[in-house]
């Protein structure tokens, strides 16, 4: 399942940011529009590196689809960073 929403929150000693719910699924629109150009770049890089472009795309796709459920929270006494991918 591709990631749909990213939750981001950064708090510092002098600022407080509300929790942002970022709609990642909206990124698919520009990605689809740019896909021909991106495929050309990926194919070129893979052929230059003597790597199978299909395998590279498959690995990248597997990584993207396994991102949902990632949860990172770093907190100190005065600050906090929260990243969640749903």
């Amino acid at each position: 399942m591709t990631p749909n929403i990213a939750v981001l929150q950064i708090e510092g000693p002098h600022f407080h940011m509300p929790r942002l719910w970022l709609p990642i699924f909206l990124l698919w629109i520009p990605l689809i529009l740019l896909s021909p150009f991106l495929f050309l770049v990926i194919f070129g890089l893979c052929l230059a590196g003597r790597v199978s472009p299909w395998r590279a795309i498959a690995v990248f796709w597997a990584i993207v689809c396994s991102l949902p459920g990632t949860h990172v929270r770093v907190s100190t006494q005065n600050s906090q960073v929260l990243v969640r991918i749903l």
Partner: protein
Amino acid sequence: MNENRRQILEMLAAGKITADEAERLISALEPEPAATVGEFSGRIAGSNGGKEATVKTRAKYLRVLVEADETMTGIKGPTTVNVRVPMQLLRAGVRLASLIPAQAHQQLDEALSRHGVPLTLSQIKPENLEELIDHLEDLTVDVDSKEGNATKVRVFCE
């Protein structure tokens, strides 16, 4: 005392088996230990109310918890890091090694061995990594620092 155990003890008394062999036979007769984290023992629906079965539930996430104090981080106050990573992401991530060009393997192996990591990338196969990740589900690491330093690290699967 059940019949099997009695037979083993009789064989031991008759001198047919040694004490070590008797102990091994008795241990083999003992029932499975109680269900541990990640295992479920119970009746399976539709199993005619008879036998119980043990079903191992696969861990879905790898969690890393770090608690460090000022002396470790240099930041005033305690620092907490809580990272949860899907196991699927680890499986997908190890496939990145397959993207490394073959001619780069040797250079990487040399660089790794120079830094004290005797790893041969070309011999790593996907099935080995899958087995490694499967065994990672049983991993639990608890690290407590020495007195005077409140750093803790926990790595476990859930």
